């Protein structure tokens, strides 16, 4: 639903005035009656033509009104839902009191990346699912919009030039290598540097930021925000070496044994695309979501006037999968000019791992959902370009051990779709490069690095965290793991 920005801010002003004009304090009942603030967004018809951010962010009045909805629960169940235990009632109260600076300081005690997490956290299954307001109103969508408030204060701070470079203690002479530059690594670098240790960050790509740069599209997470975090690291005196593949340009063990690093953190992510293993998957026009998104985002194929890296022009794109990555790929395909974008998913919408908001946005942008269907083969023309996708229909069978009803193929339900681009978005496994070049490091059978309660690997002085440990997870979990590993590294070096 497209909401009018002017209307939204006018409504918020009215609501705020009503609150401020009251003489008696708000009772919980009154707070629950305050209208939940919708997120202003670019209209679907506009945003499909550009790469700019879809959600525009709260106005200050909206933020205040939304903050007044919080009941300031004594037991604060929301905090338990947040993987890094942000003092949610604390920062929300500060917003209600228009102390935006204080609000962001409160958040930053627990989270390093509020502008990012406020945007991409799956709040509806974390902090907001626990929120009392949502529980009482029996609708998680009616919970206090904690993520949006977090984003608001972080943006407010950035837009008002109020970001301060964290203080760094006197140099200790110790050196730490941080491998990768995603959220886990950014967190480790900052936390370790603060203690006065020298930090060198190694990134394989030409730009730091990890999945936040190459995977999550601009329209959900503007790259300028990620780069702001990176420049803060630089301002703290962290040496960032791009184009440096640890394991190839230098082995991990050499960094420790020969180059004088006292400890290392591995945050190399889950960058190994899974394929369907169906016939025709290597035809021209079949991409992994990683490749497609990297071409569009990091390599800027969207800006075809200026960028050298192309994607194939497509009339009809099919995305296979139902997670965030699939939604991102489908929505990029819309913006890359595909006339039709279809999303094929084996189960029903209820089982889709993607966030509700992303599913809604994708639908608004014209992505057509094919549920209980799955691709079984692709075929191509004489030039080896994909032109047909063969699919099967499914129905939900008996619940399996996990209680989820299993999709079972319907016999004889095969049908063909005419396509010219297929994007496989069925997940990622762990990047095996460090494991291959550092066999001493123990991994589990999924290739994830095994760590103890302190984030330490089986190799001395080597720590790990984020997707390389958790499997494909989330930004906030990666950050939380980074915090934990940084604390252990700081303890080791103390």
């Amino acid at each position: 639903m497209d909401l009018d920005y002017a209307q939204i801010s006018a409504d918020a002003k009215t609501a705020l005035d009503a609150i401020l004009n009251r003489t008696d304090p708000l009772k919980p009942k009154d707070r629950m009656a305050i209208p939940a603030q919708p997120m202003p967004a670019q209209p679907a018809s506009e945003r499909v033509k550009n790469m700019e951010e879809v959600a525009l962010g709260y106005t200050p009045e909206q933020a205040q009104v939304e903050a007044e909805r919080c009941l300031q629960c004594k037991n604060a169940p929301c905090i338990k839902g947040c993987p890094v235990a942000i003092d949610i009632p604390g920062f929300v109260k500060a917003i209600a009191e228009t102390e935006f600076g204080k609000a962001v300081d409160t958040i930053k005690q627990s989270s390093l990346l509020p502008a990012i997490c406020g945007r991409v956290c799956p709040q509806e299954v974390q902090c907001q699912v626990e929120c009392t307001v949502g529980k009482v109103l029996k609708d998680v969508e009616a919970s206090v919009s904690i993520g949006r408030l977090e984003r608001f204060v972080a943006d407010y701070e950035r837009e008002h030039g109020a970001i301060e470079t964290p203080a760094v203690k006197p140099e200790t002479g110790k050196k730490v290598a941080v491998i990768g530059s995603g959220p886990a690594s950014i967190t480790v670098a900052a936390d370790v540097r603060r203690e006065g240790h020298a930090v060198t960050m190694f990134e394989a790509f030409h730009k730091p930021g990890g999945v936040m740069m190459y995977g999550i599209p601009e329209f959900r997470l503007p790259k300028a925000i990620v780069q702001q975090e990176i420049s803060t690291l630089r301002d703290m005196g962290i040496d960032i070496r791009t184009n440096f593949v640890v394991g190839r340009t230098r082995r991990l063990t050499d960094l420790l044994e020969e180059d004088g690093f006292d400890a290392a953190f591995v945050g190399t992510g889950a960058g190994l695309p899974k394929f369907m293993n169906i016939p025709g998957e290597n035809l021209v026009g079949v991409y992994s979501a990683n490749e497609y998104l990297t071409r569009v985002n990091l390599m800027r194929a969207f800006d075809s006037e200026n960028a050298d890296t192309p994607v194939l022009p497509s009339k009809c794109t099919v995305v296979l999968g139902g997670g965030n990555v699939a939604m991102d790929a489908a929505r990029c395909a819309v913006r890359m000019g595909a006339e039709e974008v279809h999303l094929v998913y084996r189960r029903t919408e209820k089982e889709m791992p993607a966030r509700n908001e992303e599913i809604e946005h994708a639908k608004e942008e014209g992505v057509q959902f094919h549920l209980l269907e799955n691709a079984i083969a692709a075929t191509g023309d004489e030039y080896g370009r994909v032109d047909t996708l063969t699919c099967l229909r499914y129905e939900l069978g008996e619940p399996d051990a996990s209680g989820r009803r299993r999709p079972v193929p319907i016999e004889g339900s095969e049908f063909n779709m005419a396509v010219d681009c297929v994007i496989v978005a069925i997940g990622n496994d762990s990047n095996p490069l460090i494991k291959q070049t550092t066999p001493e490091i123990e991994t589990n059978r999924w290739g994830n690095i095994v760590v103890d309660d302190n984030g330490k690997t089986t190799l001395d002085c080597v720590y790990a965290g984020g997707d390389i440990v958790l499997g494909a997870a989330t930004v906030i979990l990666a950050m939380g793991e980074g915090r934990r590993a940084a604390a252990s590294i700081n303890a080791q070096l103390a």
Partner: protein
Amino acid sequence: MNTIIDKKLLSDGVYQIRVDAPHIARERKPGQFVIVQLDTHFGERIPLTIADADADEGWIMLIFQAVGKTTQDLARLNVGDAVNNLVGPLGQPTHIENFGTVICVGGGIGVAPLHPIAKALKAAGNRVITIIGARNRELLILEDEMKAIADELIVCTDDGSYGRKALVTEPLKECCELDPAPGLVVAIGPPVMMKFCAETTRPFGVHTVVSLNTIMIDGTGMCGGCRVTVGEDTKFVCVDGPEFDGHLVDFDNMIQRLGAYKTQEQDAHACNLDKQANALQAEQDANA
């Protein structure tokens, strides 16, 4: 960092540069490559083989054909300029051991990646027979360097302007008929040349290694854009290769994937590779 320390025009549109890159020079082994990107914001990332390197002096050598946007931009850089982004060494090093007699076949620009491999095979005690080919005399590169390594050097040109008038598959076949048979063939060049080299050696059962030049982005196994079909499996050229058993590679699929963006790149020079490849194809068709 990454400063160009010298530059040479080897043949029509083929350049050789040496770049100051001590980290890469220290770690690299024959068969490995780098990824180059010139404009950090808008540039394309392209793979180029490390043709030679000196760990003590800290440089690597790249030999490339200016076929499209990035290679032409690279050709425009001069001594003292920096290659903005250079990452490597990537890929699996060549498996080097003493196979007895080894036939090294290089076509066109493929002689560049072949050079360090031939050198290493020679150092491992192999008898190295080298076959290098090009469309004509002007396009032939690294003849002296190859001569210095090889026990025997056979030069072919398509038009007979130099050496034997033949496609490289002709002397390759003769070498396979030798007694004792060669222990290994390494063939690097345009995909169609590698395909027909593999077809040539197949009846003789001589293990044939090819080095695939697929389109790449990250070069670290993250995107899958470089994937090829090898036997029953899908392999990523950047991390599983670039070298594979030529008898198992699905070259037709690889060639199609390589041509995926052709209309978008619209590059006249690309025909150089193609012409040579087409000549081989025509020859083969004529023989069939």
